């Protein structure tokens, strides 16, 4: 599959908006509705509230709910509902103020520090660290002591205390995109820094800032209510915290007084947090596919059940893949096949190459042999047999890890594409070679070490002891691939699967690794499956070739036959795209005018 999007596709592409995805999330919708209701109730408190917030009916204190006072009255004879509504005004406004101050300070400084770095970055980071190290409550108490009980002042100070959070977040996000190629491209286009930041960087920063704000607003409400609860607020104005404090003092007389402000605070903070989560989920843009539930009564096929015997006359093949199909369940319940009806075999001492472009299913085929498919993958059909026994029997839905773990490492080994990311940076190369051998072969550590050194020498590493003691970052990519080859042959496997083993390497290093693979294969007589997109590698190593396109095998045969006289049009196109031996500056594709890459 060269082009997932067909050429010349037209019509409007439906893209679900972020807001749409939030609303479709039940929790997100609930949070939004709750916040809108709370916000509206607070905003229209003057209209909605039956009494003024400080209107006091001295004759009717601590009244039970009902009648004129819907939620009753507090210890001062004031209407609870009205105070709840007016209190929401102040509480929400102070949360808004706090978050605005934090953003106004944190965002621009974070942008500048992240984009330019240098002295501003060091100075701003120093200030951020200093503010973070201040004990927040102490600062707020001192401010109140020095400047009086103003909610607004307290929230401005709290906003400053929270600004390092925004600063650090913005700075990190900006640093991660500052060196993206599209920012470089904008620079080459001559965009000013201001426009680059506004167009290319703000779009990345926006989402994390919104999520952070929903959390910060919740924290601000909690802190503001906490201060008022402690009696540090302005007693002349109703807030949820002051009401909580009043309720707490009269908890034995009228416990209900505690319930209303608690409910208001809880609902608001919970809605903010849920909204933050919903935005995050919507932005992650991943459709979660639930695992198919088995219908009741259908038992999981027992793994211990006797395996069917393989078809007679095929036992002698080292590995035989028959009509294999691998698929991934989609959100709409269908299954998308990435490998379809693939059959091939490999004998002992043979080198088979699976060739194809990205999306051809060549790696998925290799992974199903190794049993390394992701959990969501399903074997839709077909079977895999290794040395006369099924690893995937006909009818199996997944690859049995039980059956394969007995083979992996011992009889089937793997050489990956990216040598560096397949070595653990925390352990020395030696320990990564020794450990599998002690487990798989059951030999002592000393024995395994001697064997590892021998193997390292065998794969052409000049100073085995030094490489044995080295950490992965201390060796080059070519060396790392040699180490992995040493690891792959350490337990004397019958089959080695190499997935694009030289793609990440420079061409001169690739030539050496190919030499090594060829020598090893001849010496040990193992079967090798090479997955690659490079026909040069195929020509260098393979005995037989399987050409794959869009999950299917289009052609299979002897290497000389396929490379010299390809029969299938796709193989012909692939070989025609090779540049070697072509006249320079000529068209490579016949239908260049109409084709779309």
């Amino acid at each position, binding site marked *: 599959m060269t082009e997932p999007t067909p050429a010349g596709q037209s019509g409007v592409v439906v893209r679900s908006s972020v807001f749409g995805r939030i609303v479709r999330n039940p929790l997100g919708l609930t949070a939004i509705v709750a916040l809108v209701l709370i916000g509206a109730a607070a905003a229209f408190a003057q209209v909605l509230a039956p009494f003024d917030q400080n209107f006091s009916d001295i004759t009717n204190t601590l009244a039970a709910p009902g009648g004129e006072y819907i939620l009753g009255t507090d210890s001062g004879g004031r209407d609870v509902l009205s105070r709840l509504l007016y209190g929401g005004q102040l509480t929400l406004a102070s949360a808004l103020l706090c978050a605005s101050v934090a953003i106004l300070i944190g965002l621009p400084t974070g942008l500048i520090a992240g984009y330019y770095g240098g002295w501003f970055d060091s100075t701003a980071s120093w200030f951020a660290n200093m503010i973070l190290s201040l004990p927040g409550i102490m600062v707020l108490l001192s401010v109140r002591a020095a400047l009086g009980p103003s909610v607004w002042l307290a929230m401005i100070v709290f906003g400053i205390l929270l600004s390092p959070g925004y600063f650090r977040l913005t700075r990190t996000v900006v640093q991660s995109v500052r060196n993206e190629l599209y920012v470089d491209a904008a620079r080459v286009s001559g965009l000013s820094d201001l426009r680059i930041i506004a167009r290319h960087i703000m779009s990345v920063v926006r989402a994390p800032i919104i999520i952070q704000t929903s959390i910060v607003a919740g924290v601000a409400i909690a802190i503001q209510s906490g201060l008022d609860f402690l009696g540090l607020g302005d007693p002349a104005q109703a807030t949820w915290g002051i009401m909580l404090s009043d309720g707490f003092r009269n908890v034995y007389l009228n416990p209900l007084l505690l319930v209303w402000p608690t409910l208001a605070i809880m609902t608001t903070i919970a809605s903010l947090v849920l909204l933050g989560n919903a935005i995050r989920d919507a932005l992650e843009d991943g459709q979660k596919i639930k695992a198919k539930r088995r219908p009741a009564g259908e038992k999981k096929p027992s793994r211990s059940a006797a395996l069917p015997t393989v078809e007679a006359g095929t036992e002698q093949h080292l590995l035989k893949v028959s009509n294999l199909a691998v698929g991934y369940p989609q959100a709409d319940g269908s299954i998308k096949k990435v490998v379809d009806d693939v059959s091939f075999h490999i004998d002992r001492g043979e080198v088979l190459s699976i060739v194809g472009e990205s999306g051809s299913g060549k790696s998925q085929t290799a992974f199903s042999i190794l049993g390394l498919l992701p959990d969501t993958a399903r074997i839709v059909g077909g079977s895999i047999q290794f040395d006369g026994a099924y690893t995937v029997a006909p009818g199996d839905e997944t690859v049995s890890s039980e059956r394969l773990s007995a083979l992996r490492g011992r009889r089937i080994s793997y050489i990956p594409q990216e040598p560096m990311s397949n070595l653990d940076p925390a352990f020395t190369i030696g320990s990564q070679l020794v450990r599998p051998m002690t487990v798989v072969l059951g030999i002592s550590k000393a024995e395994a070490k001697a064997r590892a050194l021998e193997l390292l020498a065998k794969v052409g590493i000049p100073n085995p002891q030094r490489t044995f003691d080295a950490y992965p970052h201390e060796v080059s990519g070519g060396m790392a691939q040699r180490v992995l080859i040493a690891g792959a042959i350490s337990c004397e496997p019958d089959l080695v699967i190499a997935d694009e083993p030289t793609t990440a390497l420079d061409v001169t290093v690739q*030539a050496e690794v190919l*030499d090594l693979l060829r020598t090893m294969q001849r010496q040990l007589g193992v079967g090798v499956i090479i997955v690659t997109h490079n026909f040069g590698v195929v020509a260098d190593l393979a005995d037989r070739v399987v050409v794959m396109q869009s999950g299917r095998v289009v052609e299979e045969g002897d290497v000389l036959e396929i490379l010299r006289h390809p029969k299938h049009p796709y193989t012909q196109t692939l070989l*025609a795209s090779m540049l070697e031996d072509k006249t320079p500056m000529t068209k490579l594709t016949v239908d260049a005018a109409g084709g779309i890459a």
Partner: protein
Amino acid sequence: MTGTPILTATDVVVEYPGKGFRAKPFRALHGVSIAIEQGKTLGLVGESGSGKTTLGRAMLGLAPVTGGAITFDGQDITHASRRQRRALSRDIQVVFQDPYTSLNPALEVGEILAEPLAVQGVAAKDAKGRIRELLDRVGLPQDAVHRLPREFSGGQRQRVAIARALALSPRLIVCDEPVSALDLTTQARVLDLFLEIQQDTGVSYLFVSHDLDVVRHISHDVAVMYQGEIVEQGPAEHVTRTPDHPYTQRLLLASPVPDPVRQEERRANRLRLLAEQREQDAQAGAGTGASISAPADDAEGVSVGDRA
């Protein structure tokens, strides 16, 4: 070289500041000189870490040039200011290697293509017409305007990047490994597009690649880089088929050919060449260091040079 060079680089040195206090700066380019002629392609080939990408970035003002000079059309642009760069962006453009990160994922294709036009003050209406032309030029459907980069395959994204580079009708495009991330058949089609554009518009390319076959196919002249220096430079046919320098020879023979019989020959030739070069190096001794071939100066005495 004949003809008038549109861009010249003379003894360009690029140094990145070292990490840590008073650390020695890292020298990525050691005095590199090249010239690109009007309407021609200079292929720049080398392995990872050879400095080929750095040279391209130096021309674009994205790498710190600490020595030498770069001139474009006779004008010194070594340390061009932001304002000069904005004017230069009409003439020098870029296509990067990775079509997945070179397009802003949050912007629609139309917005991406409008960006360079807007910087030059092209009116929105004219820009729209120009974008339509550009999409046609690179063979993308018109409805691409309102789609996001992630809705396109790698080859199509690279076409968007090429369209962005062409937007201002530049005279030179720096192409930094523009086909390395693409599939074989896609690579062929994108290379065709590059050739077609050059024939139609007479644009010059600095074509950076690690693949000798790609460079041979598209270039008029080829320069080979190794460890921050140019070791060989000349007409493409000569450099990529009958190279003089030992490193280029190794590079040529290391690239496998898609035919088992010819590949076996090439392999044998390569091993013979490596043995010869090792012998020469041994004879040259440790003193002169005239050759920079890998096997001999590898401290470990590796059987075959290995520096990735």
